[in-house]
């Protein structure tokens, strides 16, 4: 008896542990949604403000409704197609049935990444613009199997004779189906629908490959935010979603419970029906209504639009709203993380972007590959506000100042935590110091990583010498065990949260991190570094070139330049804008606006040609997979 009891307790503990494993991250997210600090790594006190700002955040709400609408529509379509298909397959001869089920199993068993890639290849081959409709098609495709696989077993259980009995009693096939067969398979249809809905909601990988600009589901939105730190509103939203689902489940499971004595009272069943139906119907109305509301809000009266492709968190959303309000032009906004991710998208012509913001060397590459359109300066009178120094500097990659308008500039340097290092840092060597093993954050992009290694040895960061590059590669491989992680924008959060002592960072981020954590110090190493410019350009296949120019002109306005500087904290080349900065310390900050002395050994990246570029990539792959 006792043994049995310990047995029982053991089981409970095991179950509890597994559930803890499953729900610990969820609990974490819920707690984070109440964290007053924007940083994931720091507890800044309890707050409910994210729940309020969530509803004012158009981007998140749009993503939410896109997600829900795609999940809902794709689940409905999959349910209809899948149920019909199941009935057909069920009546087939076994050979045909095996083939059909085989096809059905392909998306179930195949890797998501392959399904996603294959659909992307199809859409692009058919010149289908990637966007909302392609995501929807993809989701329907992977949802149908879930429906078929949950309806088929129910069909197998149904008694064929009941259908025949209905026909015998004079019912038409359609009537007989809906009155006799359908109620039997309904549980399968419903669970298929719910399965499809859930799968669609949770999908990231397939959406990642089939989505286009301006359309984001929650998953892709989150993924684009992962690198720079997720906005707390996301946590708030997921908490709300999760709470809603739990509430729904509790309602459905507890509302008018079946009386324990098995009385077969038909009225009891009827009493339960409304609750069961009202909730889903209300939910559907909410989804569809909300979706339409946001769609209408999203697509304002004008048909004018401009498709912007920019770095993540590189523009104040309020500036976009202001632009839309002033000009009536809709901004379709999409973000990327690195030049290397952006470039193939432009090259493939799959999506026609109107304005892009690449870095210096990438602009050179685009010019050389004939991907850019000349800017009509008559449409960009505000160019006069840009400091001529930077127009001159731009000539290194845009020799005649024909294609680009400087937007931000800065340096790459080392950010370190004064409390975690022993002496002031002034050299790249520190990134190879065993003492800081697992305390180092490196940049996760080819050119930046190589720039560090090359500069450390005193080479040019535009080196094409095989010998120099080999040494740099070996250095990076040697360094890898010391590196805690290769990151892009996460370096910000991790440094704020004291997760690492030293990180390679862009000067613009340095200002932000110092504001959040006073122990952080930024330095441009004495060996020199990269000084870079990000500029607005217009791709050749832009469909709204004039709108693009209007957009660029708008951004060159001093007040807008200031607005952006305060939002993104990256240095602005806009002279008039800089003059408007109120805080004198920042206006004259040497991090934001370095002097010639600081930039003594610094260089700007140049495009080195496709061959050298892929050689760099090869070497970088070697480092990453070492």
């Amino acid at each position, binding site marked *: 008896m006792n043994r049995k009891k310990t047995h029982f307790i053991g*089981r409970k503990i095991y*179950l509890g542990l597994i*559930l803890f494993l*499953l729900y*610990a*991250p*969820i609990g*974490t*997210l819920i707690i984070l949604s109440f964290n007053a600090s924007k940083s*994931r*790594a720091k507890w800044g006190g309890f707050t409910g403000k994210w729940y309020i700002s969530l509803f004012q955040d158009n981007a998140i709400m749009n993503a939410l409704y896109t997600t829900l609408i795609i999940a809902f529509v794709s689940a409905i379509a999959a349910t209809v197609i899948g149920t*019909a*298909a199941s009935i*057909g397959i*069920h*009546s087939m001869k076994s050979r045909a049935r095996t083939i*059909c089920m085989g096809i059905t199993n392909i*998306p179930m*068993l195949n*890797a*998501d*990444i*392959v399904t996603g*890639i*294959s*659909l992307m*290849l*199809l859409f692009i081959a058919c010149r289908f613009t990637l966007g909302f409709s392609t995501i929807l098609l*993809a989701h*329907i*495709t992977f949802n*149908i199997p879930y429906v*078929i696989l949950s309806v088929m077993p129910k069909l197998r259980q149904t008694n064929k004779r009941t259908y025949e009995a209905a026909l015998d009693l004079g019912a038409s*096939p359609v009537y007989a189906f809906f009155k006799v067969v359908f109620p039997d398979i309904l549980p399968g249809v419903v669970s298929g629908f719910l399965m499809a809905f*859930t799968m669609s*909601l949770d999908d*990231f*990988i397939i959406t990642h490959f089939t989505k286009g600009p301006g359309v984001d589901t*929650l998953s892709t939105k*989150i*993924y684009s935010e*992962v690198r720079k730190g*997720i906005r707390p509103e996301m946590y708030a939203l997921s908490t709300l*979603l*999760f709470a809603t689902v739990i509430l729904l*489940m509790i309602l459905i499971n507890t509302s008018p419970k079946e009386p324990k004595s098995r009385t077969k009272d038909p009225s009891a069943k009827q009493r339960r029906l409304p609750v069961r139906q009202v909730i889903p119907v209300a939910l559907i109305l909410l989804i569809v209504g909300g979706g339409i509301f946001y769609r209408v809000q999203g697509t304002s009266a004008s048909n004018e639009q401009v498709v912007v492709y920019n770095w993540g968190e590189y523009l104040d959303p309020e500036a976009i709203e202001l632009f839309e309000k002033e000009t009536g032009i809709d901004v379709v906004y999409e973000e990327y993380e*690195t030049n290397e991710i952006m470039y*193939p998208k432009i*090259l493939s012509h799959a999506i026609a972007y109107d304005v892009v913001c690449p870095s210096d060397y990438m602009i050179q590459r685009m010019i050389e590959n004939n991907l850019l359109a000349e800017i009509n300066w008559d449409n960009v009178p505000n160019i006069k506000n840009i400091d001529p120094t930077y127009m001159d500097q731009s000539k290194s990659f845009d020799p005649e100042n024909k294609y680009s308008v400087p937007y931000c500039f800065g340096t790459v340097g080392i950010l370190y935590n004064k409390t975690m290092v022993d002496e002031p840092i002034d050299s790249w060597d520190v990134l190879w110091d065993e003492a800081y093993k697992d305390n180092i954050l490196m940049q996760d992009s080819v050119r930046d990583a190589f720039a560090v290694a090359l500069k450390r040895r005193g080479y040019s960061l535009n080196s094409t010498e095989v010998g120099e590059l080999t040494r740099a590669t070996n250095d990076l491989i040697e360094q*890898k065990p010391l*590196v805690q*992680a*290769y*990151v892009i924008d996460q370096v910000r959060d991790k440094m704020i949260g004291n*997760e690492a002592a030293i990180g390679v960072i862009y000067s613009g981020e340095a200002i932000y991190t110092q504001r959040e954590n006073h122990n952080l110090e930024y330095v441009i190493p004495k060996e020199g570094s990269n000084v870079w410019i990000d500029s607005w350009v217009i791709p050749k296949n832009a469909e709204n070139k004039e709108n693009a120019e209007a957009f660029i002109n708008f951004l060159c306005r001093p007040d807008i330049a200031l607005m952006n500087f305060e939002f993104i904290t990256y240095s602005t080349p806009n002279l008039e804008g800089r003059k408007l900065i109120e805080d004198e310390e920042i206006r004259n900050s040497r991090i934001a606006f370095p002097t010639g002395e600081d930039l003594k050994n610094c260089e700007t990246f140049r495009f080195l040609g496709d061959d050298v570029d892929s050689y760099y*990539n090869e070497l970088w*792959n*070697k480092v*990453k*997979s070492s």
Partner: protein
Amino acid sequence: MNSHKKLLTGPYLIWAAAFILIPLAMIFYYGLTGEDGGFTLGNLLAIGTRENFKALGLSLILSIISTAVCLILAYPLAMILVNMNVSQSGFIVLIFILPMWMNFLLRTMAWQTLLEKNGVINQILGFLHLPSLQIINTPYAIILGMVYNFLPFMVLPLYNALLKIDRDIINAARDLGATEAYTFRKIILPLSMPGVISGIIMVFVPALTTFVISDLLGGSKILLIGNVIEQKFKQGSNWHVGSGLSLVMMVFILLSMAVMNKYDKDGEGGMF
């Protein structure tokens, strides 16, 4: 009559041809041609380069380990769940589906918060004066992420397979003198094989091909074959090599299924 019903399959078959078969054919096309459009096996052979080969090997190791861990964790769990009150079975399935309503990326991200150097777990360990746990950005963190994300895919088929075993079959074995352990080995385990097999496939395939988990929990230090392929499409812009590598990966998926199906005599394993 039946021919009428068969027509209902029409829309699906057209759909499947357009969105399942043709896209797959396109992967084959891209995978077997070069940039110039000529036939080549070069894209498949790209797996032979040291970096790609290493990524594939690591993917295989990590996915096999995490599949094994999932199986070891899920089996006792499924047995416990099956032995719980039957009226709660809907609820049981629910608690394993429920986490899916919290976004997959966020859930995985949350592990970062938990596992980080100054993360929640280490703060608790530190408070208890226990040595800290340094697994973030290591393969262990990736395995944890895989197990965490794919465990439900192992639990549900196992649970369904075990649920199908008549209580009296187990009673019969006990009645005939079998100890609990012997009953498990000779009766429960063989009868639940279909569930074990579909569970293994449902976990192994996504684990082998993931790029997100390794991205989020591996600190971009660890490249899996999924990451390599994703980069070929999203960054490197070499769709031909990417497709070629996908084909190689599919070979491994098919291989694992063939091996598994050999043991699945009845072929009736499934999630549902």
